[in-house]
C-alpha cells in the first residue's frame, strides 16, 4: 500500500499524470473509488480485498477533463477491461498510466497495453468452479423453471441502470434502451420492459464481458444478472474459443466467423 501511495506521489509530483484513480476508505468499513489530484492526498489511497469496484468504468465516463493524463489502480478485472476497451478503440494509451496490482497485492509496472496483454495471458483465465456451479444450477432447470426463475428475478428490477452505469463496457453515449425511433426496449420497468432490457444488456456484452460481476454487485436489488453474461462468455469461449479482455488484436467473436462454426439447430 505504501508502494502504491509512493507511486501515486511520484506520478503526480512529476506531473506524469494529473489524476490518480484508486480507492479510499468509505462508509461503514467499505472501500470506494477515489480521485487523487495532488501528491499530498495520495496517502488516502488504499488497496486491499475490499477494493472490488471495476475502476475501468471511469475511463469511459467521459467526464474526466480532456487531455488529462490519468493513472489508474488496476486489479485484474480492470486490466482485462482496459484490454477490451483498447481493442474497441476507446482508450488512448498515451493518456493512461496503468498501476497494476497483482493477485497478491503487489505493484506491477506496465510499459504499455501490450505488456498488460502479456501479463493477462500468463494468468489462469479459466472460469472458477463456483462460477461454473452457478451456471450449471440454472442449466439443470427445466425450460419452465428457468422461465419462472428469471421472470421472478426480473420482476423485481426497477431499471435504475446501476448495472449499465457500473459496467466499463457499457459506454454507448446513447444506449439502445434510450433509443426510441423505434422503441427497441420497452421503457417502463414492467416484466416485458425488464426482460427486453436485460436480454439486450446481455447480448450487447456477449463476448465483451470480462466477468468482473460489477453489474450484479452494483444492483441495489441483488439481481443475479451477471449470470447472463457469464453464461454467454462460457458459451462463446466453448464455441468459438474466444474470451474478452485477453487480446488487443484478435477480432471480436461476433464480428467474425468461421465457415465451419458448428451449430445443431439450423434446418
Amino acid at each position, binding site marked *: 500500500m505504501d508502494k502504491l501511495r509512493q507511486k501515486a506521489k511520484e506520478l503526480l509530483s512529476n506531473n506524469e499524470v494529473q489524476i490518480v484513480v484508486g480507492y479510499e476508505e468509505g462508509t461503514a468499513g467499505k472501500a470506494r473509488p477515489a480521485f487523487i489530484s495532488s501528491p499530498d492526498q495520495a496517502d488516502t489511497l488504499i488497496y486491499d480485498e475490499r477494493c472490488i469496484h471495476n475502476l475501468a468504468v471511469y475511463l469511459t465516463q467521459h467526464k474526466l477533463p480532456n487531455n488529462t493524463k490519468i493513472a489508474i489502480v488496476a486489479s485484474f478485472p480492470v486490466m482485462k477491461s482496459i484490454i477490451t476497451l483498447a481493442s474497441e478503440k476507446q482508450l488512448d494509451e498515451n493518456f493512461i498510466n496503468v498501476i497494476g496490482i497483482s493477485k497478491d497485492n503487489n505493484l506491477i509496472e506496465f510499459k504499455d497495453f501490450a505488456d498488460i496483454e502479456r501479463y493477462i495471458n500468463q494468468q489462469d483465465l479459466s472460469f472458477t468452479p463456483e462460477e461454473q456451479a452457478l451456471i450449471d444450477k440454472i442449466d439443470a432447470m427445466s425450460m419452465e423453471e428457468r422461465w419462472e426463475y428469471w421472470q421472478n428475478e426480473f420482476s423485481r428490477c426497477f431499471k435504475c441502470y446501476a448495472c449499465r452505469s457500473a459496467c466499463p463496457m457499457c459506454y454507448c453515449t446513447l444506449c439502445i434502451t434510450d433509443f426510441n425511433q423505434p422503441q427497441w426496449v420497452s421503457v417502463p420497468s414492467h416484466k416485458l420492459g425488464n426482460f427486453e432490457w436485460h436480454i439486450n444488456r446481455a*447480448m450487447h456484452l456477449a463476448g465483451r464481458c470480462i466477468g468482473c460481476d460489477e453489474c450484479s454487485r452494483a444492483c441495489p436489488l441483488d439481481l443475479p444478472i451477471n449470470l447472463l453474461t457469464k453464461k454467454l462468455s462460457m458459451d462463446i469461449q466453448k464455441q468459438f474459443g474466444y474470451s474478452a479482455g485477453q487480446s488487443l488484436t484478435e477480432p471480436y467473436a461476433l464480428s467474425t466467423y468461421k465457415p465451419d462454426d458448428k451449430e445443431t439447430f439450423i434446418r
Partner: protein
Amino acid sequence: MNEFEPKVVAFVCNWCTYAGADLTGTSRIKYAPNVKIIRFPCTGRIDFMLILKAFAKGADGIIISGCHPNDCHYTSGNFHAKRRWMVFRTMLDFLGVDVNRITFSWVSAAEGARWAEIVNTTVDGIKKLGPYDNYRKMVNEETEVNNG
C-alpha cells in the same frame, strides 16, 4: 374451425429464401397460410431484437431463413448471422424462452418445395406447442395496474 391457428413471422433474405418462396408460388405448392414473410437484404441484417419484438407483438412462432453457407449473395452475411443465432439461441434458452418456436433454416432460391416443407413443419410444431402464453402473460402484465 376453432383449432388454434398460430401466428408465424418469417424473416428471410432477399436473394435465397425470398426467391425460394417465390418459386414455391410459381410451382403452385400449397402451404399453411399462417406464415407471413418480411424481406431483408440478408440474414446478416436480421437484428435479434426483431425476434423478441415479434413475440412481444403476438407471434407464436418465427422462421428465420437465408442462403445456404457459401451461397450468400454477400459471401459472409449468413455466416455472421449463424454465429449470432448460436449465441442468441443460448441466451433465449438460458432465460427459459421456448427456442422450439424459432425455426432457423437455409432455403435456396431453387428450393421451393423445401420452403413449403419448412413452413408446414414449423406451423405443425407450433400448433402442438400451442399459443405462446408465457410470453403473452409477460406482455400483458404491463396493462394490469401495478401496485409497486
